[in-house]
């Protein structure tokens, strides 16, 4: 017998994610892959292609479009969808607003939380029973509590106090009609793992992730981008800095960090030295209160 070797850390994570993707597809009638154009979902699409090879990826991509996206993200999303003839389904928060299921406190308010409503409407419309997402446990303390196969009841709600037992790597994907699962193949990946994998596998990302010159203004500890949705407030001064985004989300609440890192390897090096978590450094919506993510998830957020 050949002497066994130890799989590398990334090989182990990749293999686990592929296993989870295949388990989800095999136990699902109508799965979809949540694709935002962000780095985690780009990694997830890459892994899904590997998981179902030599067959073509037959799972549709689902994007919940807040209408508050950076242009670079939308063009990246469309490019990915085109290049692999993956089926792309777009559900618009704008439509939920139009039909009255989403009411925002003000026209310019963040639409991150509102995505949950649109997502649940899309799940119902298309009959999805399993949604594959790129969320990771190291992102947030509520996510750190979530199962890999995370059950949602007929209201689309997560009930953190009564999650199903999840034993070993045996995933019970059984559902009643109207319920769904959110499945997270990247549960055990950290931000550093994601960037290491992007470097190794040369995964393409929106330009937004790499250092570029951008007009920004200071808002507390954060730099906010000057955009049509977030114009320069009176009395503030815009500066043009070299920045990059660590996460990409709703334009009204996603902030860049100062950086000169122009490729994935340089970002990986910076991430290793970083002293702020990725959401802490970039997301205004998670600063609202301590349990912001948990409350959103209970309402159906991914």
């Amino acid at each position, binding site marked *: 017998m050949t002497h066994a070797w130890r799989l*590398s850390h990334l*090989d182990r994570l990749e293999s686990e994610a592929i296993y989870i993707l295949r388990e989800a597809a095999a136990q699902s009638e109508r799965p979809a892959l949540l694709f935002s154009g962000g780095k985690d979902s780009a990694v997830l699409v890459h892994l899904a292609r590997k998981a179902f090879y030599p067959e073509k990826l037959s799972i549709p991509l689902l994007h919940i479009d807040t209408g508050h996206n950076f242009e670079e993200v939308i063009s990246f999303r469309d490019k990915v969808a085109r290049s692999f003839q993956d089926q792309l389904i777009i559900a618009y928060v704008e439509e939920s607003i139009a039909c009255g299921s989403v009411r925002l406190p003000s026209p310019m308010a963040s639409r991150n939380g509102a995505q949950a409503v649109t997502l649940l409407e899309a799940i119902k419309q298309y009959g999805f029973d399993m949604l594959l997402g790129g969320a990771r446990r190291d992102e947030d303390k509520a996510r750190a509590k979530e199962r890999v196969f995370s059950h949602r009841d007929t209201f689309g709600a997560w009930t953190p106090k009564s999650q199903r037992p*999840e034993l070993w790597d045996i995933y019970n994907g059984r559902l009643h009609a109207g319920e769904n699962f959110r499945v997270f193949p990247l549960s055990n990946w950290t931000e550093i793992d994601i960037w290491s994998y992007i470097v190794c596998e040369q995964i393409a990302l929106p330009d937004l992730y790499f250092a570029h010159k951008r007009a920004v203004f200071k808002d507390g500890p954060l730099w906010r981008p000057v955009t049509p949705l977030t114009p320069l407030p009176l009395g503030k001064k815009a500066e043009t800095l070299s920045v990059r985004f660590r996460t990409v989300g709703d334009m009204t609440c996603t902030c860049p960090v100062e950086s000169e890192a122009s490729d994935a390897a340089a970002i990986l090096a910076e991430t290793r030295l*970083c002293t702020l978590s990725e959401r802490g450094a970039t997301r205004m919506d998670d600063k609202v209160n301590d349990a912001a993510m948990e409350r959103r998830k209970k309402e159906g957020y991914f």
Partner: protein
Amino acid sequence: MSMSQSKLVRFVTAGNVDDGKSTLIGRILHDSKALLSDQVQSIVNARFGRADAGEMDLAFLTDGLESEREQGITIDVAYRYFTTQRASFIVIDAPGHEQYTRNMVTGASNADIAVVLVDASRIHQGHLKVQTRRHATIAHILGLKIVFAVNKMDLIDWSHSHYQQVEASLIRLSRTLGIEDIDIVPINARSGDNVVHQSAVPSWYQGPCLLQILEQQDKATDFADLPFRFPVQRVVRTNGHTLAAKRGYAGRIASGQIRLGDEVCVATSQQCSRIAKIETYDQILTHAQAGQSITLYTQDDLDIARGDCLTSSDARVTNLVVADLCWLDDQAWQDQQRYILRQGTASTPVRIQTVLHVRDMHDLSQVRGEQALAQNDIALVKLQTQSPIIADEFATNPKLGAFILINVDTNQTVAAGMIRNS
């Protein structure tokens, strides 16, 4: 891909409520510099914090749910990740309350080591708490290596004689359970003494600190040295429905190794063939081993579907197994209820023929003839399955020796099972 070979240590905390499990994890993350500054800030600002002014409530690093913070307890498992120079860690913080034992079992099933905490100040005349016994029992039957951490040593002024008393009862408990190899370490999670650093430890303790003990573990077993087991997840087709179509079997090797030309059998039908191709998206392989997700092609067309397991020729199958069960569901076992057993990717209807014994958690004795199985019971049962399953014993092959039971009507996962023999 990168071939950096790092050791992976997965440990779960266990023990009675308030023995300091979440605080210990917070301490380990904090002292091994695995925390970012905004994460530290968020626990300083946290509502419901129990720490004195100027101190942090370290438990809040893993008690991430609102209701956990309100009640100051852990309800469900939290997963955290950190790396030292010697190993990568997955840290699993499990709840101590009896009510949430099923979450502790979930955490334990994904760990290799259990750090069972004991509050030194609350043990009198060496009398251990029921949850300490229960968690040690669960960890042991789930095949985990056990490290006992005797916590809150400051509250007993690091008294050697008191420690020795606790140590003696932990050794007795281990003997009762049949555990030979244990580590016992005195710590103070709140101050960090003997957790990551050896500060403030009296001269009577000569051993390593907790983190050193964990770093030395290598329980991430070499499943590659066990017999070959490959539960088929999906059947894939190349060339569609043409004559040249070829069926491949996608899965992750649960145990063992496989080379081109090796003989494999379908465990339940005893049909055999040889491996014609081992494939991933990136390459064609000549050899693969446990843990790798691959697609296998056989020389002959066999009748193989999801749920079949490709094995080396030595695998046995059976319809009757004796197994340890942890009953997790709040609905007790009912004879007329229909259940499904899942092993690997295979599912089959199952019935519990006999409950051989249920363990009494107070003295760990085995109560015979009790025909009930309620939540948190740990029992030895005889099961009959409709289709045969692979007869691997959990002790020798924890991958295929493990199974779950599912209630057909509620879809709940109701029990964790481990095959003893058949």
